[in-house]
């Protein structure tokens, strides 16, 4: 059994090293926390890993002992006394676990858990609403008319109360660097805390299987300095930027008259569709289709003409637009800052 | 070891009495029915549990537009059904004594009452269906599902009655005696569940 033993020791050490390494890279890692909540959970993990390592190597040591003494009965020194072996089972199987588990229970479920909980209703400076759709995130800022999608802006160093709901199936809101996840369940208003230590962009993803495009239901949290956040919110709450040229006006007319308007809203126009994301300030966003593709002209055009190629199963149908109309709509959408 | 008893071959009063006297523990068939009851009880309790789960989530129960169930007739019917446990148990006792005549008569008596109960229940269910639909609200869904699940158990009991009565035409054997006892036990379970289901069904009016 030494073979198995050594292999495991190597694997576990490798694992620890890799995990440490990984903590630095990747932007959706639970191990690169950027808030107290996430940090407490990560710390809890490292402690649990340590304790688990002790148990694992302890057990491995015993199995190894079994292998080295495979021709000798009983234990070294203690022999084969039935009462003693039973006593050891009771010690390692009952006594030690009880003590460790009580410690884990208290630390994890009373101390750490309080750091991750949603702010009390009255205590919070700010509440935002995130609504899951197949397959994008709608973001609303109660008290304002601001609506956006897939890019959640919050002020840094502010405890934000997030109300998580859904319009269709169950989704789960999860930004691991900032906090644990919370499910979005029809008929339930769940809440979670979002807090970022410092300005930055934190990636998140739907964590409850929600249909064929579950894999492409991601979002980003932009934590901004409070004044920049306020400026962003002011812009977001405003209706769309009125077309400033005949070409853009034509783009708006095509958009409103086409199938686009039956699913999308552009505030300030007669497009009031509620199936897809609000596009009032589409050009301010960095990505399209819930982080599937960058928000650049070529991708945007490709998305409009053939969304099923990029995101098979998505609710968006291919929109057939003539060459000139198509360019006008692209110009128009790119002007929606 | 020489006193090996071959119980299943016993037939006729004296032999069955002898088997029953010598037997130290419940026979396999009895255990089988106990386990069937255990699993069926879990099934019914999960349904009843769902009733209360949905009820405690609801702001109004039954929902607006659905009258609270009327109490008198279902309670009387429940009482009548409970009484059938008496002849069923007596039938089980009679088999232990190897007496086939009383066994048959008692089962027929119980079966008539049980069939009547099911008939009246089905009429009540039809009336309820005219008032509200299981496809309109969760209340309707759980209400009808729970009651139909109960009815299904009564119906299965009736089939068991018929089955054992057919077997008893050919007289009593120990195999059939165990069968009667198992079926009596099943009816006690159905009746116990009737109390739980009917009281749950009527709970908005109680």
């Amino acid at each position: 059994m030494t073979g198995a033993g050594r292999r495991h020791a190597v694997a576990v050490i490798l694992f620890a090293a890799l995990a440490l390494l990984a903590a630095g890279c990747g932007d959706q890692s639970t191990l690169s926390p950027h808030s107290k909540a996430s940090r407490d959970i990560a710390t809890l993990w490292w402690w649990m890993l340590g304790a688990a390592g002790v148990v694992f190597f302890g057990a491995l040591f015993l199995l190894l002992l079994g292998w080295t003494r495979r021709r000798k009965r009983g234990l070294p020194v203690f022999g084969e006394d039935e009462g003693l072996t039973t006593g050891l089972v009771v010690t390692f199987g009952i006594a030690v676990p009880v003590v460790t588990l009580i410690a884990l229970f208290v630390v994890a479920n009373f101390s750490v858990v309080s750091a991750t909980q949603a702010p009390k209703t009255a205590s919070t400076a700010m509440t935002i609403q995130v609504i899951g759709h197949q397959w994008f995130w709608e973001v609303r800022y109660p008290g304002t008319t601001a609506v956006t999608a897939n890019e959640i802006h919050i002020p840094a160093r502010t405890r934000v109360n997030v109300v998580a709901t859904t319009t269709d199936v169950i989704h789960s809101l999860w930004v691991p660097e900032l906090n644990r996840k919370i499910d979005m369940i029809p008929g339930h208003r769940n809440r979670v805390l979002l807090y970022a230590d410092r300005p930055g962009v934190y990636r998140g993803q739907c964590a409850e299987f929600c249909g064929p495009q579950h894999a492409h239901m991601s979002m980003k949290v932009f934590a901004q300095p409070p004044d920049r956040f306020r400026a962003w919110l002011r812009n977001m709450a405003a209706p769309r930027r009125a077309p400033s040229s005949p070409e853009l006006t034509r783009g708006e007319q095509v958009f409103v008259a086409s199938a686009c308007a039956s699913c999308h809203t552009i505030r300030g126009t007669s497009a009031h569709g509620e199936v897809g994301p609000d596009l009032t300030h589409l050009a301010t966003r960095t990505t399209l289709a819930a982080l599937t593709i960058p928000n650049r002209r070529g991708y945007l055009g490709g998305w409009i003409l053939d969304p099923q190629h990029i995101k098979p199963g998505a609710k968006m149908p291919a929109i057939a637009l003539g060459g000139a109309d198509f360019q006008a709509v692209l110009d128009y959408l790119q002007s929606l800052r | 070891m020489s006193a090996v008893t071959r119980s299943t071959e016993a037939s006729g009063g004296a032999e069955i009495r002898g088997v029953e006297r010598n037997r130290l523990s419940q026979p396999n068939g009895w255990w089988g029915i106990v386990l069937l009851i255990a699993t069926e009880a879990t099934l019914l309790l999960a349904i009843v549990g769902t009733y209360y789960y949905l009820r405690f989530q609801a702001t109004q129960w039954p929902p607006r537009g659905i009258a609270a169930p009327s109490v008198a007739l279902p309670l009387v019917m429940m009482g009548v059904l409970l009484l059938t446990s008496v002849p069923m148990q007596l039938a089980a006792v009679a088999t232990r004594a190897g007496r086939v005549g009383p066994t048959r008569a008692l089962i027929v008596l119980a079966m008539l009452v049980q069939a009547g109960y099911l008939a009246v229940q089905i009429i009540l269910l039809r009336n309820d269906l005219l008032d509200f639909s299981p496809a309109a609200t969760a209340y309707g869904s759980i209400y009808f599902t729970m009651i139909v699940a109960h009815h299904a158990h009564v119906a299965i009991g009736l089939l068991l009655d018929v089955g054992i009565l057919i077997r008893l035409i050919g007289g009593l054997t120990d195999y059939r005696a165990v069968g009667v006892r198992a079926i009596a036990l099943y009816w006690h379970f159905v009746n116990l569940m009737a109390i739980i289901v009917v009281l749950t069904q009527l709970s908005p009016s109680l």
Partner: protein
Amino acid sequence: MATTTTTTAARARVDRLERIWEERPGLLGWLTTTDHKRIGILYLFTSLAFFGAGGVEALLIRTQLLGPDKTVLTPQQYDAVFTMHGVTMIFLFVIPISIGAFGNYLLPLQIGARDMAFPRLNALSFWMFAASGIFIYIGLAVGQAPSAGWFNYVPLASKTYSPNLGIDFYALGLIFNGISSTVASANFIVTIFKLRAPGMSLNRMPLFCYAFLAVSFALLFALPVLSVSLIFLELDRQLGFHFYDIAHGGDPLLWQHLFWIFGHPEVYIIILPAFGIATSIIPTFVRRRMVAFPLVALAELLVAFIGFGVWAHHMFATGLSTATTVYFAAASLVIVIPSGIQLFAWIMTIVTGTPEFKTPLLWIVGFIVFFIIGGLSGIMFAAIPFDQQLTDTYFVVAHFHFVIFGAAVFPILGGLHYWFPKVTGRMYHEGLGKVSFWLTFTGTMVTFFPMHILGLLGMPRRNYTYPRDMGWTGFNVLESIGSYVLAAGLVLIAVNLAMSLRRGAPAGNDPWKAPTLEWATSSPPPPYNFAVIPAVSSPYAMWDPEDREKDVRNLEAGVLVLEQGHETPTSTVVDAEWDEVVEMPSDSPWPISLALALSGMFAMLLLAHWVTAGVFLAFAALVLLAWHSKEPQEA
């Protein structure tokens, strides 16, 4: 015992038993058999076929994830494949192979009985299981596979979001499957309670049987809850009821509660038989009795019991109240204790014994290692905030594959080797056995261990693809390579066993000098199992030579031979005092007929042909009537 028969009197008795218990030959014999061993073999091959299917699905998943943005499968195909993988491995492989194959074949042998308590019900269980599996796979074959995951959350599984018949195949198939398992578990409980050889009081019963007793009780109480949740789902989908529909007073969380009230005991149902196999193999190869026998027996029963009180730890991220989550976290920690007892009992037994690391024991050591890893990561999920962070990521996938594949399937594979000589009469190839173990062990480690890291790096489960720049690619590639190694290991096992079937060295009755009664009879055992109902005075019956000598004397004297018919003795529940002799049924056409009638009914329910479904149900009732036309017999 056949080989130890010496006198002509004994020989005559054995011949008479052979005549009485002779099985119908050919295909018809297999279709109508009620012999627990043949039913066990039917279970074995059927569940192995499903294992193959589930394995191919696993490889498809791993191939799709071999790199970012791959298109081996479309998203819809991927969803169907991972759903079928889960459903297959849990309901059509692990449970039927452990309970149906190992339990059926071995349990009556270990308690010294001649069959299960209800042999025809036993056949019915098998045919219903086979039919339910085929039923679910027909869904895949006609392109209507379920694709909402094995726990099938509503409203994704509702008619609105899953309009094709996939979910109906799943729901009806699992209700059908559940009836099969319920019948089987009742059969096991009565068999264990009543059919133990006189003298085998509960404290002399092997630990393997304790595990099966615990599993059977867990199944008996868990399955009805699954059935209820599935019936509600079908009523919602087919008749427009509103159990799970929030708009009309239902609640999607109701599904989650019902499903996990079943689903968590299910985890212990999956693993307890593996514990039972481990407690059979360890004493044999370390040449000593299990340490802390009563504690282990108690722990096996406790695990099954406490398993019913922990379901909501699957729902920590659903926004349950803090008090609720804390209760369920505490209960989830409590269940660690009985698992810890068993773990250290196995380890201490190995340490204090003189272990001979033959293939079966290697699998058990592999199982212990994986069970520790899966158990430790499981404990971490009782830390609510950690659970809320890592649930629904690859960390969970890692956790339950260590538990289900590492800890449940490894003992099954070990058991295949351990009991191969008993079932076939031949030895497998030891060298190949060891190679296949190390290949599978390495493959398992490489496939599933990096999943922990992926989860920590934020990769959610059930994603059909992943972006290039997340730092996930390397681990995914490693896992996919591991899965091919793992598959190679499994294929090697199949090759080894298949070749040994013909070429293996003859095994004799008891090649391992094992402690339990299945080794008392010939390999393979005769249809009546034992010529003499064996004498038992400890859980290690074969290590009590006086008892075995007594069996030989009994056969010569004609004591406890029961040569007047298809008979087995029953005994009292606790002390196993001799009670009576019951006549067992022999082959019967009714179990398979009933299963066919019920298949017809479920198919019609699927197609919403209610009247035709009723006709099939009536058929089923007629079959039952015919079933009971023969007596005196046990069911």
